[in-house]
């Protein structure tokens, strides 16, 4: 399936969830509501024409000052179809949570922990949601745009 056909298929299947789609130089992107992310991911994996069986990357973006503030970005790849698609799910600051997709692709486990660690986005249903890169006792989420550049952590004293 071409990138446009992939996006059409997602839009037809989830007409109320897909907010916007676009392709640019062969890269397909769909911006979706977070409520249906689990259903969308399951559909992308299980539909025989799409067959996105490989979750390549999961990350987040902080658009400070915009609403909704966060976007969780999923990069998917179909090994059998040699196709890629990017799904962006919008997450507001007030209720900073989204469904975990570990049940769809087990590879999402550590990616979701990383996003939780650095952005503070909670993944509901994650089997082991705790910090992965930073240590227990770290205060705040340093990749948020409003994390102070000179902020220092209490673990090793005021000089640091």
């Amino acid at each position: 399936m071409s990138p446009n056909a992939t996006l059409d298929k997602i839009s037809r299947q989830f007409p109320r969830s897909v907010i916007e789609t676009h392709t640019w130089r062969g890269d397909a992107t769909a911006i979706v509501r977070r409520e249906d992310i689990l259903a969308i991911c399951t559909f992308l994996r299980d539909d025989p024409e799409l067959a996105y069986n490989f979750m390549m990357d999961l990350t987040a973006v902080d658009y400070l000052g915009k609403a909704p503030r966060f976007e969780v970005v999923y990069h998917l790849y179909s090994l059998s179809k040699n196709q890629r698609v990017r799904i962006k799910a919008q997450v507001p600051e007030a209720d900073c949570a989204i469904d975990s997709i570990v049940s769809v692709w087990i590879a999402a486990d550590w990616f979701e922990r990383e996003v939780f660690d650095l952005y503070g986005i909670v993944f509901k249903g994650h089997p082991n949601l705790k910090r992965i890169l930073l240590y227990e006792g770290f205060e705040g989420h340093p990749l948020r745009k409003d994390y102070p550049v000179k902020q220092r952590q209490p673990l090793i004293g005021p000089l640091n």
Partner: protein
Amino acid sequence: MGLINTFSAEEPLGPNVVVTRLEAAINWSRKYSFFLYPFATACCAMEFMAVGGPRYDLDRFGAALPRFSPRQADLLMVVGTITHKQAPILVKVYNQMTEPKWVMAFGVCAVSGGFYDNYATVQGIDTLIPVDVYIPGCPPRPEMVLDGLMLLQEKVTQEKWSDWPKGPAPVKMKC
């Protein structure tokens, strides 16, 4: 070998006897027999390998025997960036070393944090443990490391027993 023929008491005894102070003799032997513990965490470790290899050869200074247990080492070489997460480990290693012990900050990250002025990096290991010699550079040239080692040897020569830092590192950490 500056110790020989320093004291007039040697003259009547001839060349077979060396008179010295016990402290000076021990320091002299210590400065040529560092047992170093390479706490290598980052890219500076490549330069540490270069300085340990045959071209620059730390062994010429008697410091070529890396010990991979801090309990057998007396020179802690902190080679690379130290993150907050790693800081308790560094302090634990330092506390486990036998006295007397010396610390070398190898590379600008260990000296001051380098350009990593961010949420994760220790701003110089001297905020955690006492440091004897600082070697800047990103990474330092092997010549700089050898220069630093010779500076440390000079320092050791002049040390008294009361000069060594004793006890655990001054910072308190859960580790």
